[in-house]
């Protein structure tokens, strides 16, 4: 046990130097392992390990976590807020909350889930406070190519891209009505009755569609989620 612990210490230190190193293998299982330390010494440090550094006040750890998750947070913010400036402000807010409040608990889920949940709820709050009708009139236009970053980091390109590919493939396999109900629930934060009136569909039908859609998505992503 002692040897394991000191090896971990050693690699814990060593791995700080290789944060930006590319993750070679896709993440198979997004949920934290229930127990046991099965980390391969060649793995880049996990989000939880880097987050532990962040809690000790390491600003470079914040930079690494931004490199890994910043784009996803931003994309979600843009999708909900439909405004790139507001989306950048919210992205900044979310990472500063991570930095200042240190409220993320790795035992309760992945960091990406925490950041996305935080982003989603804050973005939906902002849209609601804007006035509910304005939002629906806005066409989602995004000025591409102006002042955007040069492209995903290697870490993102492999790991996130793999997750993204699987999620996209799975969503494509859902019946259109189920996918639509799920996306309205997620991005618009609409209640099922709001969705029902928006789609002019009976409430019971909407509930069935979104529930069945979520269950089907979960089955399609069994490879990813375990």
């Amino acid at each position, binding site marked *: 046990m002692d040897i394991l612990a000191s090896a971990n210490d050693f690699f814990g230190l060593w791995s700080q130097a290789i944060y930006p190193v590319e993750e070679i293998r896709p993440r198979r299982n997004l949920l934290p392992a229930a127990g046991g330390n099965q980390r391969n010494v060649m793995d880049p440090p996990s989000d939880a390990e880097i987050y532990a550094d962040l809690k000790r006040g390491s600003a470079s750890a914040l930079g690494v976590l931004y490199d890994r998750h910043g784009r996803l947070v931003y994309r979600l913010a843009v999708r909900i807020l439909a405004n790139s400036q507001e989306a950048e402000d919210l992205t900044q807010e979310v990472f500063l909350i991570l930095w200042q409040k240190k409220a993320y608990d790795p035992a309760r889920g992945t960091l990406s889930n925490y950041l996305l949940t935080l982003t989603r709820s804050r973005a939906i709050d902002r849209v609601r406070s804007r006035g509910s009708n304005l939002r629906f009139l806005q066409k989602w236009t995004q000025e591409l190519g102006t002042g955007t970053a*040069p492209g995903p980091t290697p870490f993102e390109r492999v790991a996130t891209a793999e997750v993204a590919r699987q999620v996209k493939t799975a969503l494509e396999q859902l019946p259109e009505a189920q996918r639509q109900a799920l996306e309205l629930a997620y991005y618009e934060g609409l209640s099922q009755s709001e969705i029902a009136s928006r789609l002019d569909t009976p409430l019971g039908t909407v509930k069935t569609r979104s529930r069945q859609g979520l269950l089907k998505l979960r089955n399609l992503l069994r490879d990813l989620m375990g």
Partner: protein
Amino acid sequence: MNRQPGEWEELMAGYVLGDLSDEERRTFEAWLAKNPEAHAELARLQETFSLLPYALPEDNNPAAALRNRILEASNERPAAVRRTRPGWLSWAAAAVAAALVVTLGFDSWQLRAQLTQSRQEVGRYRDLVSMLRQESTRLVSLRGMDAARSASGNILITPGTPEVVVTLSNLPVPARGEVYRLWAVVGGRKVACGEFMPGAAGSVYAKLPLNGNLLTAPLVVTREPGDAPQPVGPMVMTSNI
């Protein structure tokens, strides 16, 4: 409550989506409480729902400068510590100035208090370091028990010096009128070696007169009514000899 597995599954999905009626939610939560093995599946379903943004267009990225902005902002002091700015309205200026004087006065009093405390701490560390430098210094560690299980600390004893130093942490604050006493156990009898009280955070830094028994006998700490000449209270710490 007799539902098919598929129905529970659907309720679980509804729970994640937040579309259960109050009654459905109560039913589901009661079922969940009795089926802890379902928690993992619930977590997976929640994670699945939160994966939706991964399918968003990947060519949509924040400005490269955002990273620096965030790192710079993280360097600033947290918002909670920032002092509120004085108001702009002239009628409030006097009040603001007065408040500022009070605030600054309080701040400087606080700073002085902190400085005094820091100096005391530095003095203590110096004492400890100089004791530890002496070869003859003996370190007896004390371990908490029962109600004071998380307490721990040491007694530093240097033969030839008049005092021993007791440093403990996480010692519960005793009831009013009670004190902690250190005893050397000699021939089954407890010999009093002095008393002390923990500070607000449960830490103790006390100097007690050196007693020959401290060098040889097992030591215990008890919690005692302030005026009891004999040990009557519970034992809370013991040395690891």
